Structures are given as C-alpha cells and as structure tokens.
C-alpha cells in the first residue's frame, strides 16, 4: 500500500517539475553578453537586506532576472534580513571583494547613518551604480477637499498640528513630511503608519493624507479612492502626466528625497569588476521588457556611471546629515 501511494505521489510530482523546468528555460533565451575585458566566473549574489516578497525585494528580483540575461553567470537574489536592513550590509562588508556578492543600497542607509543607528557609509563599500528610480507620492482621500498641495499646506497653516499626515516613522516619507513642513513653514500632526495597514487609515478618513511609494498607492489612485497631490520628483510618471511634480507644486532642493536604489560591492573590489556590473545595470535598464515590467509597478529602472553615483551618494549623505541635525535640534 505504502509503495503504491509513494509511486502515486512521485507520478503526480513529475508533471509539476517538468512544467516548472520548461518555463525556466523559456525565461532565459540566449542573449548578447556584456563584453569587456573582465569575465566573471562565479555567480553574482544580489543581497536584498529585507524579506522576500517585500517592496524592495520585488524590483530586485525583476532586475536580477534581466541582469542575468546579459551576463555569463547567474545573478541570484538572496535575502539577508535583520537590524533594519543593516544585517545584509554587514554580511556583504565581510564578503570577498571579487564582485560575487553585492548589497542593494536602500534609501534607508544614508538615513540610518544620519540618525546614528548605522555605523557604515558608502565609503565603506565600492559603490557600483543606481539601478532603480522609485518615486514618493502624497495622497489624500478622493472625498477630501484638498485638490492640490497648496490646499493641503493652507489647511495645515490654518490649523497648525492638526492635519494628520501619515508615514512609517523614521523612513523617507517622514523626512519628506518634515521637508514640506520646513519649506512651507507649517506643522502637521505626524502620525505613524508602521505595521501592515496604511491605505485603510486613509480610506476610513482617520488620517488626512500620507506619503508612500507611488507603486504602493497607484492602484488606489486608479480605483478612484485616493487623489495623488504630487510626486516627489521632477520627472512625470508615464501614464500619469496629470499628477504634478514637486517642482510644479513649488518645492525646491528635495532631490535627496528621491527613492533611488543603488548597488554596492565590498570595499576593495577591482575597478574593472565594478565597471562590468555597472555595464550590466546599463544593459538591463535599457531592456524594453524590463522597463515595461517595472513601469507596471509604478517604478523605473535607472542607470548612471560609477562616478556620478558616488557623487550622488556624497550629496545624499550630506543632506541627510543636515536634516537630521534639524530634527535633533528641535
């Protein structure tokens, strides 16, 4: 009896694996391989310092797929979770500097450093480049009377400290709220939205508005439940041209609030290896399918040179230091 059962299970598993395998082969057609003097021999591990299936993990998995397409080796995503994303960075810091282990740089790192909770900066790594542009957006309930950022700011001006603006405390959206407060000289009641539920708080009108990644709020804007008052960037999002950018809404000097995700290698990684991976990012970010898949999530692949990226990191770290000083000063 046991044997028959076992056989049955095995028989049922075969088609499952056969199909799964088939799909895998289709997903990786022969593609042009990035040329250059350096050819990698080891698979590249793309470390995401947050859990699988999360907002940082999903774009990373998509992008790694397209990086693999242009490389001889496989680019694998691994999640090393813990200590607010710092555990992953610490692991990569200890790894061999041969380009086989990279860490995704989330926007959290400069912030954590400025607040004194992270001990490392981009200088402790070999920065490779930016690969993802994600945009923060300010949303209010579609039933509310706020039609523009000006309305929201005017309401906060009229009743200081009562308009409830939500964000997950200590993340980029909190800094964005503070930046709006500083530039417009108003005061919000900054409420915390950590935990799972952000949208329900606004859907039920318990808060007046919140700031989150555009990808996360997109579907509520489409369903007509939320109104997006502005996106914290200077470039329009394709398909959502009617949403004003923060420049149009009258803000300046908010570049550090752009949600840019980068890639770091351990310090001491040879320059040609860094260049090779930077070129992989370039090829993947220009792939039409990759762009389409990312845009569907409200994000976009990005690319810049190693030098440009390192310079951006420098200004971002400096700016966060300034803002953090302002917070502590309060």
């Amino acid at each position, binding site marked *: 009896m046991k044997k028959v059962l076992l056989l049955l299970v095995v028989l049922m598993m075969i088609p499952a694996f056969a199909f799964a395998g088939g799909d895998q082969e289709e997903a990786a057609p022969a593609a042009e391989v990035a040329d250059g003097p350096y050819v990698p021999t080891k698979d590249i591990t793309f470390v995401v310092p947050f859990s699988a299936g999360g907002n940082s993990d999903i774009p990373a998995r998509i992008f790694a797929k397209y990086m693999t397409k242009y490389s001889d080796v496989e680019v694998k995503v691994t999640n090393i979770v813990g200590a607010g994303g710092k555990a992953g960075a610490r692991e990569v810091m200890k790894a061999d500097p041969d380009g086989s282990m990279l860490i995704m740089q989330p926007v959290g790192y400069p912030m954590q450093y400025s607040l004194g909770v992270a001990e490392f900066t981009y200088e402790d790594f070999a920065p490779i480049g930016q690969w993802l542009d994600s945009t923060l957006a300010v949303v209010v309930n579609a039933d509310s009377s706020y039609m523009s950022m000006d309305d929201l700011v005017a309401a906060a001006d009229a009743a200081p400290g009562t308009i409830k603006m939500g964000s997950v405390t*200590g993340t980029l959206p909190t800094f964005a709220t503070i930046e709006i407060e500083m530039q417009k000289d108003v005061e919000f009641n900054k409420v915390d939205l*950590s935990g799972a539920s952000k949208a329900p708080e606004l859907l*039920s009108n318990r808060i007046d508005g919140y700031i989150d990644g555009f990808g996360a709020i997109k579907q509520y804007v489409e369903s007509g439940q939320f109104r997006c008052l502005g996106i914290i960037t200077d470039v329009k999002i394709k398909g959502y041209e009617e949403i004003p950018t923060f420049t149009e809404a009258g803000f300046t000097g908010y570049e550090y609030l752009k949600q840019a995700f980068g890639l770091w290698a351990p310090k001491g990684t040879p320059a040609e290896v860094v260049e090779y991976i930077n070129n992989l990012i370039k090829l993947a970010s220009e792939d039409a399918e990759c762009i389409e898949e990312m845009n569907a999530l409200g994000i976009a692949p990005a690319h810049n040179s190693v030098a440009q990226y390192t310079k951006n990191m420098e200004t971002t770290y400096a700016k966060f230091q300034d803002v953090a000083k302002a917070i502590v000063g309060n």
Partner: protein
Amino acid sequence: MLEVFANILTLQNLSLILLGVAIGNVFGCIPGLNAPIAVALALPFTFNMELLPSISLIMGLYMGCVSGGLVSAVLLRIPGTAASVATTFDGYPMAQQGRGTEALSYGAFASFFGGIFSCIVLLALAPVLANIAIGFGPWEYFGTAALSLIIVCVMMSGKTLKGLIAVCIGLLLKTVGMSPIDGVAARFTFGNYSLENGFNLIVVIIGVFAFPEIINSIGKLKVVVKPAKIKNKLFYIPSWKDIKEQLGTMFRGSVIGTAIGILPGMGGGAASLISYAQAKKTSKTPEKFGTGCAEGIFCCESANNATTGGALIPMLALGVPGDTVTAIIMGALTLQGISAGPLLSMNQPVIFKSIIFAVFVANIFMFVYQIFTIKYMAKIVEVPKYYLFPLITMFCVAGVISLNNNMFDLIYLMGFVVIGYILDKNDYPLSPFILAFVLGGIVEDNLRRSITYYGSFIESMQQVSIGTLFVYLGVALLIYSAFRANRDKFKRFRKEKT
C-alpha cells in the same frame, strides 16, 4: 466560473497543490519551521512559474502548514506554531489515552471545516467584510487585543488572577528590544546588541511548551503510552455522529477564526485560544476540557484554519495582508504582475476567483492527505521515549537555529525553558502568557498610535468607537469576575460560620 475551474483543475496545478500540502504539513509539524518560512522559501521557485501554478503551490503550502501543526501538538504536546497551542490542551491527553488516531481525525476534519467555511465567506463577502475591516483603526485594534487578553484570563475559571499575572509577564517580556514605532530606546537590553530585536515568538513557544514537556517526561521514561488503535483501514474520518454533535462548535470556531483572521496581525494563535476559551465557557460539560474531549479539538482547529480565509480577505480586497504569510503571498502575486487590492476583483474577476478556488482545493487536499497519513503519524507515540525525546530536542534546536542563524536565540531559549517550567509547575496557565506575547506588540503599537491620533489616552477613551466599548467591556469583565470569585468565597465563609 467554468474558466475558474479550468484554470485550477489541470494536472499540473493539482499536483503542485498536493506537493505544497505535503511539504507544508512537514513544515507545520516541525517546531521552528512555519508557514512564512515555507512560503518565503518557495518564492524564488514561483518566480519562474506561470501565475496559476505559482498560486497553486503557495496556497497548498499555506494550507498544509497551518494544519500540519496539529500532528505534533496532538501526539507530542509540542505546538509547531502559535496557532496550534490550544490544540495541545485536549489533543495530547486524548493521544495519551490511546485515542491518537481519533484526535487527529477530529483535528483534520475541523481544519477542513474551518478552511472551507472561511473560503466561502471569502468568496461571498470579501468586499463587504473588507470595508468593515477598514473601520478598524489603531484604537479599535488596541481595544480588541486588550479585550482578547482579558477574555482568555477570565475564562480560566478559578485561575483568573494567575492568568492575569501570566499576561503581565508575557507583556513585560515582549517589551524587551528596540521600542516600536520610533526605535529610539533599547529597552531592557543591558547593552547587549543581540537583545535589540527582542524575543522571537517561535523560540518562546518552543522554550515554554516543548522543553518543559521533555523535562517532565524524563521522570516517566518507563511509562508506556497506550498505543493508538490502528484499524486496518485506508483512512480515518470522524463518525457522522461526532460530526453532527460538533457542528455547532465548529461553526462558532470558524466564525471566530474568520473574524479574527480579517483583522491584520491578530493571527491563528489568538483565534484558536479565544475559540477554546469560548467553547469551554459555553460547553455543557466544561469540566471535561483539558482531559481529552473532542469539543476541545474541534473548536480550536476549526478556528485556526478559518483564519486563513479571513487573512486573505483584506489582502485580496484591499491590498492589506492579514498576517506574515499573506504579506509574502502578496509579494509573490506582485512578482507575477498581479496587484492585490480593490481593483483585482473588478478588473480580473477570473484570477480573483481562481485564487479562492485554489484555496478551496488546497483545503480538500489537505484533508485527504491528513486522513490518509494519520495511520502512520499516530505510530510516533509508540517510539520509545529515550529515542523520541533526543530526536525532538534536536529538531527544536535545529528549528530555532534555522530561524535567524543566530546562536543567541539558543541562549534565551534556555531562559524561556526555565520560565515555562516554573510557571507550569506553579499552576500558572501558559496560554495567556503566549497570547500576551502574540498580542503584546499590537497592544503597545496601537496604544501609542491612538495617543498620537487623539492626543492622549483619556481623549481616546472619549471616541465613539468599538475600541472604547471593548476597553470598557474588558474592565467590566475583570470587575465582574473578581466580584464573582469573591462572592463564592463570601458564601463559603458564611456557611462555615453557621
């Protein structure tokens, strides 16, 4: 609808669901491994699959994991997850009486009933219930969680005070680590960085339940457990008479489970413990609870499986996951280009229904798988204890290590073994302690959030909301039970006098 059936009822999808259920069952059984881990491990594989096969595999894993905890809870008194803590209360005594196969078949059927019930609710009422869930803000969560803690204590007849003390110890231990929300204060870490992440729930459960049980058994190594009656039949299902008798219990358990599942963060642990307390209170024979009665298994197993459909409601209808597993499932869907949320049921009704149908099929497979394997599982208790317990110890230690690859988890595991042993020996109930640990974060975070929303605790209490009602109800329940306990004493005192 035909399209929905055609989507899932393919050989490939069905075999993936079965595979998921089988693997999930193993993950559910082993303490330390649980549904979030199983689904997260499967995620990279699903990335290369089509949408429907990946949904099939994940839903199979999810259902398998949630029900798998039943086996180790009943046979070994070791709950694999928080959701099966309540199952040990009656399942284990039953297995010790040589009725292991019966206990497992009850559990399997109740799980099946709860799973299917919540699935139907999910299909029929998802958008409506999701809108009710929206009404739950921080203050309502605080009220619900605080009331749940009080209910579990009050229903420990005769042990309310000890239950409350256990709740307080649980809440206190939950505060260890970085303060929630702001992350500014490191509380009770004494400069030890490893303590900053607090204590892991799974480690606490293993420490409090598994090891004290092993220590207790050392004195009884020679005691032979009455072997379960293994009849020469292919599968075990409870008799029609049993099912008919327990229909009401299962129905109530399923309603409680679905309702708690809808509320993000509450989870199967809270659902089964509350359902157990409720069933004991309303039972005609409450004295039988804890001695191995069928009702005690039916109530909690139906509740913990009903949370699955409940947790999927806010995820599918709102894009708000109800627990860790659904959060990962939502990520898996996003990777497949499906964004769970208000638009899913409108724009892609076929996919929406296919997901629910996959859950439905997974529940059926889970039931069939369990009733076929009961025969083999029930033999575990016949393994001599001097072989079995070292093996379980090894599994527990390996499970703890596999959580974070952190040796420090093992060090505080020993601390919790001591706490669990002392509490148990002094007749302190452990379920309020665990529930406090499960809900402690929700209570604290939402109280703090309520205060930022409304200004202060007093102002929160003036809100016209179900949260305020629950807080008052909790206080009233405590006063009432204190009054009642003392009234009995007073009566006895008077009788002695006369």
